[in-house]
């Protein structure tokens, strides 16, 4: 099975990049394929209008303007889904669900022979600071017994949640959805 994934650019929660949305906007193509793309498109349209005077002046372009726009658009797209953080004494604190999912996928990918396909997080309303994680995985054939690999993934996920986020997962559901052949 041939699989590719884009690692550059500014990814939206749906997996497409802000750059793709911008390309379609420039080309006049209508690509409202999901709410995230539509939000990013609206944000880009608003920002283009608001910064028209700046970008129309080629002699003094603000530094890294395009990258800054992409980051801002991505932040807007991530504002909706957040997880509350515990331990804050002077007001509310939260973290983007997309950011946490990225940390967890990276942690799973760090196990040799494992590739995280999707990551879904749900909040436990009865237990503050606790989440449930459902992740689908691909395994490389020949990397070792599946139960050993899944145990390693669970350990890496728990370590990443504690060390990089400050949350605890009371439940981690892992599902193997694909096996790909060992590379020659």
């Amino acid at each position, binding site marked *: 099975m041939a699989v590719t994934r884009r690692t550059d650019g500014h990814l939206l929660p749906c997996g497409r990049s802000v750059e793709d949305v911008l390309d379609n906007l420039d080309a006049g193509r209508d690509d409202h394929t999901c709410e995230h793309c539509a939000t990013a498109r609206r944000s880009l349209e608003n920002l283009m209008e608001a910064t028209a005077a700046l970008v129309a002046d080629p002699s003094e372009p603000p530094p890294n303007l395009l990258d800054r726009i992409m980051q801002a658009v991505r932040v807007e797209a991530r504002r909706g889904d957040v997880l509350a953080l515990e331990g804050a004494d002077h007001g509310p604190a*939260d973290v983007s669900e997309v950011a946490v999912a990225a940390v967890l996928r990276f942690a799973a990918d760090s196990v040799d022979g494992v590739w995280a396909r999707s990551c879904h997080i749900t909040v436990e309303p009865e237990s503050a600071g606790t989440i449930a994680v459902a992740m689908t995985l691909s395994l490389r054939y020949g990397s070792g017994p599946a139960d050993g690999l899944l145990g390693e993934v669970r350990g890496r996920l728990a370590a990443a949640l504690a060390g990089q986020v400050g949350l605890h997962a009371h439940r981690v559901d892992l599902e193997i959805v694909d096996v790909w052949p060992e590379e020659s």
Partner: protein
Amino acid sequence: MITPVEELVDVRVASAAADAARATPGVERLQPGLWGLVQQLGHELWEHATGEPYPDVAGVEVELADGAALVDITLATDGTVPAAQVAAAVQRAVVDAVAVRAAVPVVSVAVHVCEIALPG
């Protein structure tokens, strides 16, 4: 309608909060949203036109009510410290910094972590 004095207090509070948040271990950068970016670009135009520096407060929103401040900060962490710990440390640092530099009590510091840097 915001008066010039209120605007000045607003900028002082935001500047103190931004500096304190950026200096907190584990904070990689403050991250403005779209409106913050538009404000930031406007400040750069103002600097270009006047030659005077404007404090970098992108990612920080301040609301003054009855002489006290409500601060809202969006930031990215560097992944070396748990985001929850970073958020709590930023709140404490901002409350202290705003009290010292702007002489304004802080009612609340809302911290939003929009990104956690991945290793490598």
